[in-house]
């Protein structure tokens, strides 16, 4: 049975997002490997989805009426893992095992069948594949006349993968209005600014031309995120896309909006400074 919304007010949700950011830093300090910038940038969105908007039940993660969630950019797994843990899918102590051998918190999300992290539906990591899976899921749910909603998070750089646009065509052609694509538009990818590597703007116009309903929002404003998620869920006749303008590394001053933080963890000194900036919360750290 659905257990959301668990947190309702902006203040509650913002505090949880801050704890998730602290968890990300702590996980990366232990693993000494992994991505910092993207996870911090999407902490607000994950909090909104998992603590308020999505139909979910951590005690019964695969119940029939759940909303489906796909993380196409598997490399921002630390934010997903921290969110799942804080939401009660698995013990917070296990966050220490990020990227460790025999662990469930693989460097990129691993299949449920072999690694068994509750909440994960399918593997991701090789970019460009999540949206197609989300479209297939949405088509199957529509065939069965079910009302579950499907969410997929892609990165803006990831849209350079041709498969994304194949999936965009398929989603629009079949009018999968039970599908919402969320784009983490931070204009950063591992080499440089997205605009420098291979420009994707005007992004909203592209999706409009492909017959998506487009929302462009501030990806850090909790009230706007929640309002937009509700609108997207209710939109009929077309798939929806929320282009969320975010800052890579959001919440840690020296990481913010700097593409060099795409794929590296903080060292001890940087980690300590990050944790000083991200004030402790009532939830407490796992370390």
């Amino acid at each position, binding site marked *: 049975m659905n257990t959301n919304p668990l947190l309702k007010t902006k203040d509650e949700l913002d505090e949880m997002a801050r704890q998730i950011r602290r968890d990300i830093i702590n996980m990366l300090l232990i693993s000494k490997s992994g991505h910092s910038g993207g996870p911090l940038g999407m902490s607000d969105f994950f909090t909104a989805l998992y603590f308020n908007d999505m139909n979910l039940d951590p005690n019964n993660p695969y119940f029939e009426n759940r909303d489906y969630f796909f993380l196409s950019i598997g490399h921002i797994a630390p934010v997903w893992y921290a969110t799942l843990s804080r939401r009660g899918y698995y013990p917070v102590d296990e966050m220490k095992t990020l990227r460790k051998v025999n662990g469930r918190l693989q460097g990129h999300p691993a299949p449920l069948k072999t690694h068994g992290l509750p909440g994960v539906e399918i*593997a991701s990591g090789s970019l460009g594949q999540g949206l*197609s899976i989300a479209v297939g*899921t949405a*088509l199957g*749910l529509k065939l069965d006349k079910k009302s579950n909603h499907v969410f997929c998070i892609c990165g803006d750089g990831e849209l350079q993968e041709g*498969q994304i646009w*194949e999936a965009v*065509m*398929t989603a629009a052609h*079949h009018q999968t209005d039970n599908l919402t694509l969320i784009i983490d538009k931070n204009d950063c990818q591992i080499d440089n600014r997205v605009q420098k590597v291979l420009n994707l703007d005007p992004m909203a116009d592209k999706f409009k031309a492909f017959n998506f309903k487009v929302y462009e929002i501030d990806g850090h404003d909790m009230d706007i995120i929640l309002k937009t998620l509700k609108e997207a869920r209710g939109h009929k006749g077309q798939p929806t896309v929320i282009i969320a303008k975010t800052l890579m590394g959001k919440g840690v001053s020296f990481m913010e909006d700097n593409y060099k933080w795409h794929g590296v963890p903080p060292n001890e000194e940087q980690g300590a400074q990050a944790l000083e900036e991200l004030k402790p919360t009532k939830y407490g750290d796992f370390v």
Partner: protein
Amino acid sequence: MKYNIENPELKETRQGFADALVELGKENPNIVVLGGDVTGSVKTNFFRDAYPDRFFSVGIAEQDMMGVAAGLALVGKIPFASTYGEFATGRPFDQIRQSIAYSEMNVKICASHCGISVGPDGATHQSLEDVGIMRILPHMTVVTPCDYDQTYKAVKKCVEYKQPFYIRFYRDKTPNFTGMDAKFEFGKADTLIDGTDVTLIANGLLVWEAIIAAENLKKDGISARVVNMHTIKPIDVDTIVKCAKDTELVITCEDHQKQCGLYGAVAEVLSLHYPTQMDYVAVEDTFGESGTMQQLMSKYKIDHVEIERKVKARLKK
């Protein structure tokens, strides 16, 4: 097995796929089919016309097709993704690897127009690497049926297993000889003709060629065993080892590159369990070209003539 070697019944293996699919659609409401534009060629149009609600057109976009199939499998559907062999394996390899094989999604990839038999279309459309590409993936079952009857049975039976499958078949009419009443089990090779001097382990199109070769070799006093190794993965180790022990010479026959296909699979088994003299009839690390199926099988040395030549060379007769 009953066959007329001079004048065999000819049927399309792809029609076996199409007929099985329509039957499955009738029996199981969870069967869904993805169309990659070439529905008339791969014959998914029969399913589409019978069950339009369960047919999803994804256009000429094979990478997306594999992902959409994985998503459908996630919600309990049994998706069949079908296109030409090269475009069902080579183009969407990474999608199959991550979203289907690694994730163990219950997706059935059924490829038509495989091997050199697609003839006049030329090298771009002749998938001679697909078995190798699929065989290397963990969790993938790889099947090359030899005729219409066996293709029908393989397609019908694969839905009994909740795991990924790759089934490979052809465009042109080929001899149909195994019979609908013959037993068929994945991973269990069929010994079609018994023999003592050499074992011909064949699959797909080359099974019929091996039968002709065995009949011709008989006239020269050579007793050739013919084994139909329809499942390349998981491979039937017991049968291979038994044949090696019985005949001390094993020759594989396939319409695929000599690397990574049936020859490789059988060699892997024998090198480990019972090192035995081996040879192969397969495409010699080269691309094909346009021509009729018969012309190309002859030119690329994947026919009964080549099988007979290799057997005789090995037996020094």
